């Protein structure tokens, strides 16, 4: 009920000048763009944030600045009848200005997987694509449930997910990466921390007992180069199962770092690493 109420309020907010469906939508975040495409709104999208790189058709759309710095002038010049933003400090000023000028703005807060469902529902509500939205939600839910039921009984595999090398920061419990790890049958070696992405000391790393180490790729540099760099970094901690079995991976996939409709694809990628690794082979053969 509360979901319905908040969706309803946003619907009013999103369409208070327009009684019909929005025809000129601007998306200021890559995961919003992905949702819009999934809802079949490709023709209605007039512009996206430059970071929108998926699906490929998104690259042909007009760009209105970046996710970090949307260009409000460029948004206005397109006369949008719906602008969708994320509840981030960097987008707050842009959303405020657009609202002040009377443009319909839908602001979404997407931090956990449950927020993703809510966001899809709200976008569906605001764009008159409720049916497609509930279909998409159902599809994601089914796919994720499948992973959940496959791995729920099994022994959890310990994962360390490094998001930044120097100083080393890892994904903590209060992140959607943690949710993805757990759905894929893993367990985060980082316990509960104050920060979402805490800095981890070498001592802590030494004792973490990670069976798999995943590094998010840094920038656009060559992955194999990054892979060898990362392996060199860990080479002193041979007692860690992940290092001993060479289960260290550098992942460069935007499905993994973006809380959008491809979340199940990302979970699949992680579970692929977890369950096809050398360690599992060794276990099954020995």
């Amino acid at each position: 009920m509360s979901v319905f109420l908040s969706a309803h309020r946003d619907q009013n907010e999103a369409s208070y000048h327009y009684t019909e469906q929005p025809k000129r939508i601007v998306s200021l975040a890559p995961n919003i763009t992905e949702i819009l495409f999934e809802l079949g709104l490709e023709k209605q999208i007039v512009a996206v944030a430059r970071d929108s790189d998926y699906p490929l058709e998104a690259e042909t759309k007009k760009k209105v600045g970046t996710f970090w710095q949307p260009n409000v002038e460029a948004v206005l010049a397109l006369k949008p009848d719906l602008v969708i933003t994320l509840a981030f400090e960097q987008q707050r000023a842009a959303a405020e200005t657009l609202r002040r000028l009377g443009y319909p703005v839908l602001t979404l807060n997407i931090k956990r997987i449950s927020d993703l469902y809510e966001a899809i529902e709200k976008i569906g509500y605001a764009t008159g694509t409720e049916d497609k939205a509930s279909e998409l939600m159902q599809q994601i839910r089914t796919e994720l449930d499948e992973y959940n039921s496959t791995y729920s009984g099994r022994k959890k595999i310990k994962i360390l997910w490094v998001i930044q090398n120097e100083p080393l920061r890892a994904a903590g419990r209060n992140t959607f990466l943690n949710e993805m790890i757990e759905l894929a049958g893993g367990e985060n070696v980082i316990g509960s921390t104050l920060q979402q992405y805490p800095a981890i000391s070498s001592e802590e790393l030494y004792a973490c007992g990670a069976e798999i180490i995943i590094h998010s790729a840094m920038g656009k540099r060559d992955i194999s180069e990054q892979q060898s760099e990362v392996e060199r970094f860990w080479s002193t901690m041979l007692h860690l199962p992940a290092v001993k079995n060479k289960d260290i991976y550098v992942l460069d996939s935007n499905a993994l770092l973006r809380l959008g409709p491809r979340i199940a694809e990302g979970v699949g990628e992680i579970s692929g690493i977890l369950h096809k690794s050398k360690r599992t082979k060794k276990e099954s053969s020995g």
Partner: protein
Amino acid sequence: MNFIMWILTSRRLILVILLCFLILLLVMVVCACCGTQDISLSRVFEGPSKLPGENVDYEIFMGIRLPRVVLAALVGAALASSGVVLQAILRNPLADPYILGISSGAGLGVIIAFLSGLSFNLLAGSPVAVFAFGGSLFTVWLVWLIGYFAGRLNVTSLLLAGVVVNAFFSAVIMFLTSIARSEQLRATVYWLMGSITEKPASVLGFSGVGIVGGIVILFIISNKLNAISVGENEAKSVGVDPVSIKLAAFSLTAFITAIAVSLSGLIGFVGLVVPHGVRVVLGPDHRTLVPVSAIVGAIFLVSADTLSRTVFGQEQLPVGVITAMAGGPFFLFLLAKYCKGISWLK
């Protein structure tokens, strides 16, 4: 004879101020016409339309560019005039508006606002702006009190108190950011970098009255600042009470800087370079320095902000990058051109 001299100099002063003000208006109009979108001024003059989207040119000009240009002018004027006055009362060429703890105080206020997650509107100001304003004033007065008890407002004890309070509060900020959730941390860091964004007319109105009022009063006491900048004993000998003038100048600069910081975060370089630039060209008389620095500061920040939002097309640069990269070399140029006679090896 003295009276005639006074009339002559004040006429010259009024002329200089008027000229600078006209240049400021011109720069503001030109900058409001620049942007990533091409807009036609005739469409702007047609006025607002009933529905959003019918006259986009008007919306871009009045809703985005004009508020931004006005904000940049107000902040630039506040920072530059505070810089002049603090350099005078601290008798230190390195003084800038943030030297007495305002930067860390504002930062502390902002992170507390983010951490508390409050949301309210006080005189159209958001919690972040209100806390930044409160934090700035709190630290500045703390520094003043410490300086007062440490050495009867001796300049050195005031400066030292400022440095220590700044360092201490910076440590508190770092402590809070290291235990904060990363989202709030990012918001704080982003805020501290400083930026000029569009603000509602009510915010611009309130802060405009505060800043312009503050600068006008500083201008009125500028003659006494001349006496203080020479030395306290000299000031006393011409009948100026250094403590009360310092207190007045100090509270006014704290007030207008706190407003500027609450509007735009910490924008460096304006408060340091503009006063020195103006001083090098027009001489050390504060009756000229205060108003002209304020106007030149406004021109400088309006131009810097326009560059920051246009030079790379849609990508905006932090305005602090422009103020430092344009201000530094320009200042060195002024220094070389006007101070050739100065020997560095006396």
